[in-house]
């Protein structure tokens, strides 16, 4: 089977939701990634040497260090390959896009705090607060709808899971 098809001529690249600039190859990011993964590979190689050997086996037995050691080696080689590859392709300049890093950071921080304090403030309050922050960050306004959806979601999920399915969730703060 040949993975190539000449009859399929697509005049324009297909656009997924905002995927158009996935075509852009970014040399500096790729080089950075290759360095990063090379470091990860070296880390696994070095650390796998420290793995205490299991007692059973004997000569010729295969220890638990072989697999991560070999993989670390392959990862380093592949990273070098990627580094070399960055010299071969032409940099494609992607059009400027306005990235919404602010919204992303707010939601990420809110999410991490939500996760960290879930056990302290309980599922219902935590989820309610997170959703309100999330909705309002995405798009300001419509407070009543936001409060309604957050409330229904957090209380609904909690009672379905704990009440009906007898699951285990920290419901409300202990205090």
């Amino acid at each position, binding site marked *: 089977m040949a993975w190539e098809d000449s009859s399929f001529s697509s005049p324009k690249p297909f656009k997924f939701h*905002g995927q158009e600039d996935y075509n852009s190859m*970014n040399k500096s990011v790729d080089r950075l990634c290759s360095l990063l993964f090379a470091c990860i590979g070296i880390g696994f190689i070095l650390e796998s040497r420290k793995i205490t050997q299991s007692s059973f086996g004997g000569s010729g037995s295969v220890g638990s260090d072989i697999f*991560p050691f070999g993989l670390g080696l392959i990862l380093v080689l592949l990273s070098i390959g990627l580094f070399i590859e960055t010299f071969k392709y032409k940099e494609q300049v992607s059009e400027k896009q306005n990235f919404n890093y602010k919204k992303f950071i707010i939601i990420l921080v809110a*999410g991490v705090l*939500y996760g*960290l304090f879930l056990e302290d403030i309980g599922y219902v309050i935590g989820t309610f607060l997170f959703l309100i922050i999330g*909705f309002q960050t995405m798009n300001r306004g419509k407070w009543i709808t936001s409060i309604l959806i957050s409330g229904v979601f957090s209380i609904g999920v909690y009672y379905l899971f704990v009440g009906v399915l007898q*699951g*285990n969730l920290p419901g409300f703060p202990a205090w």
Partner: protein
Amino acid sequence: MDAIQYLITGFSTALQWHNILFCMVGVIIGTAVGVLPGIGPMSGVALLIPITSSLTGGLEADQAAVSAIIMLCGVYYGAMYGGSTTSILLNTPGESSSVVTTLDGYQMAKQGRAGAALSISAIGSFVGGVVSIIGLVFLAGPLSNLAIKFGPAEYFSLMVLGLCAISGLAGKSIIKALMMTVFGLLLATIGMDSVSGVSRFTYDQPVLYQGLEFLTVAVGLFALGEVFKTIIENDNSEGQIAKFSKILPTKQDMKDSTGPVLRGSVLGFFIGVLPGAGATLASFFSYSMEKKISKHPEKFGQGAIEGVAAPETANNAASGGAMIPLLTLGIPGSGTTAILMGAFIMYDITPGPLLFPEHPTIAWGLIASMFIGNLMLLILNMPMVKVFAKIIETPSKYLLPIIVAVSVFGVYAVQVSTFDLMLLFGCGVVGYFLARNDFPLAPLVLGLVLGPMIENNLRRALTGSNGDFMIFLEKPGSLIFLLLAVLWISIPIVMKMRGKKVLINEEA
């Protein structure tokens, strides 16, 4: 006919009322997942794993497993049905296997034939699904009988082949795909080594002894990764949804699509069976094949119903075909089947040649339920096409934070640990960053799932040969698999060097 008899037993499992219910919920959620932009089949299945596990909590172990897996598979092929809806109505595919459908589907919608396009894709999906399940019924037995003869060396090489196959077609750069595979395999080594009980890379952190939980990583990489991408790149493109009133296709439409549907089923099935080549490639190939053999190739792109019927049939047939290597060999051929395999493992069931003899209720119950699920989808989709079209309008303002909340709930409900929640968000950020820079995520998940098994087989084979690596080349079966793996990686590279365009499988 052994297979038929087993299948009848399978139906008795699948027709239990709670399993029918699970199947129905699965396919409806799956269709919604396919319709909604921002959640693909991979994140849909990953997100539902914890929910199914809590839903099936009250059942016995074997029963719970079969019900959960029926539901998750329903999500998988339901998403294939749903993906076409946005392609046709909005000109934006809900997932990558419906990309080609936009070419003729949206044209048909503009001509006011959206209803016909939607229903023909539902009919095609049904036929494709059923053909591939029939293939599964008859191939499952012989294949697992063959696979059961494999020793550890053959198994190791077969898994290497599976990994290479998915890496060779997974992204723009094969090197990046291979890096992701190796990275996934490395992540799988964290934790207690199952062979010797030695803890690796845990640094005395109790949370790491169990290893990185597959579910957490998958939900983080796919579901949160996609959410972050949508937030950052702000691509809630507000398109005009095409209106339509008539749903049923005309007689001429049916006549025109019979050929494409039948050819698409067979082609899609065989492409689906090949590891690495999933639903996306199947839809591309069947479209271009129809265009080649058509008497009026100029009609394609202008709203030819063949151009909707063929790819939509093929992508469903392929998703059924992809179940074959998963169920009989234990080797998932795509990202979504890798996640399904993770779900199997969570229920202590290892897909592979032993699945059919050891858990016949699960294996055949699942296959039977796929028949039922496809029938349900056909029945549901015809009248409910308009309801699903409404789902597209769900504002992302509410959708995205809720996906995050569902991910947190799912991970916490199963893992009950704050560490996993932090890992979840970490994986979300990493997933976004990697996908943004063309590092495909499917190979990473595949590596994570297959890692422990590859390592076990590697070490068992090496222990048998006293540490001699030549055993992998001496056993003929193993040698063949390794040669195929090399070819699978090198052929696309050679073709690229010759300047040919290589189709890749961007399954999201």
